[in-house]
């Protein structure tokens, strides 16, 4: 997949240059708030994306949004670059209303595979040349496409049990004479981190083929957001996407997108509180990732898991003081946060400082028990290898990408909040294996601690009469009809993006969530095929997926 980039690929691409590059493929122009949009013919997707990837450096297919209009279907390919996140372009592919067929981008970006399957599943667009166009989130026997306009939600549905019917009933040898064995892992399994089903074909103890089967927690998050108003009703839902205490990070994804869409300013003071809260959430999420990883690798329920829960409890106490809730914070509002730091402020600062002071000792403990543990090293070093080119092709982001040496972090590359003004580093590791991903998370906890500490210092010295937690935001928000935007933040698991198209009402016309776990999970077969089963489980643990976000 490695491609020789021309010398000028890094140079900033103006919309005119992109238009030149695409040439006669373009049949129209659109203007999205985040990027220029180019409308192309349904049969030139591969051509257009390949030109953009190879000649203009757009090597990151962040998201594919599909939607149905009154008169047409549409797929939008949100492209950006791993080297420069601020470079964005949207490729808009309209499809016929009667016969919605569009070319698949799978040939250029492997990540398009799942994204297009999702678009087919929920909207109903068919993709030509797609290797495996099946439903992905809903059961195979589902009737209709629920986010399409003509869907009747009251119609009955029938869901079969099939592959889980009775796995021990008959001999599970796959084909006639082959020596392989078919094995279901999940959806109820302690190592799948939730309700994930992995279909595996084994040859002895080695994985021949592995396919994640998702959708066991598809609880219609996009539909919920499309039926809620911008101002207050949407904000509680992001908490429930990545529910590993990463609530504030998710809320920020929505807040950032909607604020840009409705042109809302956020006071500096609120930005600092947001930054501090978000980093506390990241630490809590990473702690759980460490704890469950140890649990997956050597069944360490007694020590490391308990340690990580202990540290999470500390963070959750701080967050509860700040937001009033342990897990589902609902703390951000468009234009700021809902309330100021708790009184007395000194106690809050002291509590947070105490936690930060204890953190180096705690991390040392983790290092003693994990990274310097021989068993863990044997199990993780050089297993689950994910080369950077493959990671990029699958749109991997977050600690998974950074563990493969890709220096990419939305907080730095497309700055928001108060990150720009603080002193911290993006952590990368070059090992590309399970161990590197673990190391990245552990080191990111330290970086987050640095950020929180600086925020505390700033908040402590902030003049009392300038503590402005929210800007003036109208009670109802109605962005102009047909305004489109795609914005992302760095969630705990990677780039968490949201696409919103307004339809002139108080509710979004289309609300699409780009989940980092969804893209990251796609890399699992690449990492596991040919490896041993326990290594596949280790790889899955190192991806740190959360099914609420994968399935949405």
């Amino acid at each position, binding site marked *: 997949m490695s491609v020789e980039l021309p010398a000028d690929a890094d140079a900033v691409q103006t919309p005119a240059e992109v238009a030149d590059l695409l040439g006669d493929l373009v049949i129209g122009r659109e203007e999205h708030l985040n990027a220029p949009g180019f409308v192309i013919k349904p049969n030139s997707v591969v051509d257009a994306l390949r030109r953009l990837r190879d000649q203009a450096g757009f090597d990151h297919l962040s998201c594919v949004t599909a939607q149905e209009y009154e008169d047409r279907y549409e797929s939008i390919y949100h492209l950006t670059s791993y080297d420069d996140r601020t470079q964005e372009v949207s490729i808009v592919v309209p499809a016929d209303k009667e016969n919605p067929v569009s070319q698949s981008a799978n040939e250029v970006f492997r990540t398009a595979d799942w994204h297009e399957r999702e678009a087919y599943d929920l909207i109903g667009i068919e993709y030509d040349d797609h290797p495996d166009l099946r439903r992905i989130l809903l059961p195979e026997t589902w009737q209709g496409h629920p986010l399409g306009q003509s869907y009747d*939600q009251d119609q*009955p549905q*029938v869901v*079969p*049990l099939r592959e889980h019917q009775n796995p021990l009933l008959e001999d599970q040898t796959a084909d006639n004479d082959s020596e392989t064995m078919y094995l279901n892992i999940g959806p*109820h399994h302690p190592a799948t*981190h939730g309700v994930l089903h992995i279909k595996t074909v084994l040859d002895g103890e080695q994985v021949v083929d592995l396919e994640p089967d998702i959708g066991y927690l598809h609880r219609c998050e996009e*539909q919920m957001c499309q039926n809620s108003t911008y101002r207050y009703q949407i904000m509680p839902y992001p908490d429930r996407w990545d529910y590993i205490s990463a609530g504030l990070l998710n809320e920020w994804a929505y807040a950032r997108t909607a604020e840009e869409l409705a042109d809302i300013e956020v006071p500096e003071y609120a930005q600092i509180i947001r930054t501090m809260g978000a980093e506390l959430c990241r630490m809590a999420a990473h702690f759980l990732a460490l704890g469950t990883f140890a649990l997956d690798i050597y069944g360490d329920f007694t020590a490391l898991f308990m340690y990580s829960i202990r540290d999470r409890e500390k963070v959750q106490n701080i967050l509860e003081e700040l937001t009033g809730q342990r897990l589902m914070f609902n703390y951000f509002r468009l234009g700021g946060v809902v309330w100021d730091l708790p009184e007395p402020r000194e106690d809050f600062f002291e509590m947070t400082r105490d936690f930060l002071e204890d953190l180096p000792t705690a991390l040392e403990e983790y290092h003693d028990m994990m990274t310097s543990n021989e068993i863990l090293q044997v199990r993780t070093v050089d297993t689950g290898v994910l080369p950077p080119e493959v990671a990029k092709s699958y749109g991997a982001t977050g600690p998974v990408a950074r563990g493969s040496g890709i220096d990419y972090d939305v907080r730095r590359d497309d700055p928001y909040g108060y990150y720009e003004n603080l002193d911290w580093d993006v952590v990368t590791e070059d090992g590309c294996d399970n161990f590197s991903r673990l190391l990245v998370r552990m080191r990111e906890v330290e970086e987050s601690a640095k950020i929180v500490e600086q925020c505390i210092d700033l908040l402590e010295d902030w003049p009392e009469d300038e503590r402005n937690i929210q800007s003036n935001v109208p009670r109802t928000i109605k962005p102009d009809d047909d305004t489109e935007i795609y914005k992302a933040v760095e969630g705990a698991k990677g780039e968490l993006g949201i696409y919103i198209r307004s339809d002139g009402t108080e509710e979004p016309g289309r609300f699409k969530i780009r989940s980092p776990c969804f893209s990251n999970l796609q890399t699992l077969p690449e990492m596991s095929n040919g490896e041993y089963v326990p290594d596949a489980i280790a790889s899955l643990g190192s991806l740190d997926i959360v099914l609420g976000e994968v399935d949405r």
Partner: protein
Amino acid sequence: MSSDNQQPFVTDSSKVGTATREARLSGQDNRFNSRLREAFGSSPFILTKFDKFMNWVRGSSMFMLQFGIACCSIEMMHTYAVKHDLDRFGAGVPRASPRQADVIIIPGTIVSKFAPRMKRVYDQMPEPKFVIGMGSCTISGGPFQEGYNVVKGAEEVIPVDIHIPGCPPRPEALVYGVAKLQERIANGESSPVTVKPYELEEFGDLERDEIIDQLAEEIDVEDLVMRYNWADSP
């Protein structure tokens, strides 16, 4: 424990010997001289109904199924782990296999694809079994009630003994719910097992209508399926 204490299990409050007891204890090993003996008094027998005894045993040592679905499972993990430590209440042994578990906590939203699998897991648990519904989603579908794919509460699929409201409930709430369940078990109560709106049945046994005809080519008559009549959901 000091070495000069000849009766290590006797505390001050239990040093109220009676003549009978003194007589019984003479020549006995110290280890028999326990609190339990104290509670039983001089008689080595207790009288109770066998049922009552079994209920007490069941409630006092519950094996929980290690079963995570969604957000609530995070709070459930916190309840098992340090600080809240559900094990204090004789209910903290998570078992990974349903065949070894007495209690299933349902921690999260149940969607159409998962309900048949959950029903299957529940069926695999040995009797007597108990169900705790954790969080609003298991009561009604919670914040996702209006979703096209969401089952409107766990009780549509399996019987639920205790509902714990909250989104998600705090660990304290879960501990309280478990304690309430133990109380119910000790009193010999459990939810009646009734036919639920959504049951697993063979495809061939479903009443034929438009949708069944459409699916007839895709699904074998012998396949187990769950049919969702969304329009009838509360």
